[in-house]
């Protein structure tokens, strides 16, 4: 019993930290993007205010049961992704619920939230959300391919499907990181990360000039608040996962912050400097070089 309580407490702390870290990352990035625009940008605590404000709305309109469930599925997806990733290697508190086959479960959870959101957004009835959901799902399917190939290559390389073991195998010096031992798989994975983070040129789901912010068009008040919460958790969860897989994990919280921040900056820098792809261009992109890189990585380690 005490074990369970302790685990629950640890999980709670872990989620709380990662939520705030996600929001901080968000605020930081807004500031950095603003500098690229030549602006000062919003204060760094703006994401907290935004989230508080959306929860504090006095009215909320629902369009049906699925509309309720959409954001909840999304949050479940985000939480699920995070809870099965060991955030900090060797830390009991941030080990979360990691177990031997967690990599597969995490990959499933990355998908899960999107699907839930698709149902919720569809119930909203706004045609733009429907279009954006279609775009999102097709793009996701396409970046899932290089990502899956990259993960398969990693699984072959490390003979494991446990994130903890993959991180453990990368310890002992910078040259043990996957980015140096298996650069092909790493680059395939990083391309997929660009797609997952949905910054330009892969921001076809939220594309404000095309389908004004897409799936959450009808979401308001606490529905949007849940989505914002999820965005912070899911973002950091993805970054932590990629850090674990490719950058050797982290042994303390500062290393984690540094590495995830660098990973996120990759998306941000690419996002600031490129316009948006069309849907089919994006799909074609993922099925091109990144997939070939992934395939090559798998084949090399098969041999």
């Amino acid at each position, binding site marked *: 019993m005490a074990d369970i309580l302790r685990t629950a407490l640890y999980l709670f702390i872990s989620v709380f930290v990662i939520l705030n870290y996600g929001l901080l990352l968000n605020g930081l990035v807004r500031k950095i993007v*603003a500098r690229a625009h030549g602006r000062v940008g919003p204060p760094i605590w703006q994401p907290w*205010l935004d989230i*508080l404000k959306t929860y504090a709305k006095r009215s909320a309109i629902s*369009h049906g049961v699925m509309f309720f469930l959409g954001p909840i599925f999304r949050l479940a997806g985000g939480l699920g992704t995070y809870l099965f990733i060991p955030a900090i290697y060797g830390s009991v508190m941030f080990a979360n619920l990691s177990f031997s086959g967690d990599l597969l479960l995490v990959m499933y959870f990355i998908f899960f939230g999107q699907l839930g959101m698709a149902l919720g957004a569809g119930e909203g009835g706004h045609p733009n959300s429907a279009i954006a959901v279609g775009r999102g799902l097709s793009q996701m399917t396409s970046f899932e391919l290089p990502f899956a190939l990259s993960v398969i290559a990693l699984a072959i390389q490390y003979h494991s499907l446990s994130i903890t073991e993959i991180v453990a195998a990368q310890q002992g010096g910078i040259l043990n990181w996957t980015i140096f031992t298996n650069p092909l798989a790493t680059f395939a994975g990083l391309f997929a990360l660009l797609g997952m983070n949905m910054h330009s040129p892969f921001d076809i789901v939220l594309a404000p000039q095309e389908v004004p*912010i897409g799936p959450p068009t009808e*979401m308001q008040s606490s529905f*949007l608040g849940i989505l914002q919460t999820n965005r912070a958790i899911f973002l950091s969860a993805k970054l932590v996962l990629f850090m674990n897989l490719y950058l050797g994990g982290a042994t303390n919280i500062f290393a984690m912050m540094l590495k995830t921040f660098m990973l996120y900056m990759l998306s941000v820098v690419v996002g600031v400097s490129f316009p948006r792809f069309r849907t089919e261009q994006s799909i074609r992109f993922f099925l091109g070089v990144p997939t070939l890189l992934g395939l090559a990585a798998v084949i090399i380690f098969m041999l």
Partner: protein
Amino acid sequence: MTKETKHNPSILENNGLPEFERDYFCDARPEQSRPLAKYIEKFLNWARANSLWLLGFGTGCGAVELRPLMTARYDMYRYGIAPRPTPRQSSVFIIGGYASVKTTKRIIRSYEQMQQPKFVIALGSCPINGGMYWDSYNTINRIDHYIPVDVYIAGCMPRPESIIAGFDLLKKLIKEGQAEGANKYIENLDWYKANQKKIIKDWNMPDYNW
């Protein structure tokens, strides 16, 4: 869009809608929302005042000064103001200058779709008294007869600095708890509706857009 479960004795008639469409829309009257306990409400008002999302709807020529406001020269993001493309999520509606009848219809629809609390800033002299187009057959003279307005910013065009000053005033009003335009609208719904229906001749939308 499904029906709300709440039932109110006075039901909106929705008689502008064709028969088969009435089912799609909620016909309950909107209700005023109550502020929470004093200190909680104060805290939330502080959050609301510092995170103003404005609806990206350039209704008139005032929208041209929102562009400099959003960009590096004046940078409204510094003050927690950000544009939002959908009325569902935004909390500030900027009436950008004159509103023609056709636009007024969209303004009303968008305004009603915004969630409470919601605030309105009217830019320029045209929404105040018609401004330059006071004798035009197609622009309304006073926007406060159709939707409640919290802050007016006079001028043609108001400079970005004065828009920022207007936002400051709005923030002050919100923090003091005086920006209750949404409740005022619901309280005087019949008066507003009568005014709106007087100018919008082909009323083919529900009486209140949930």
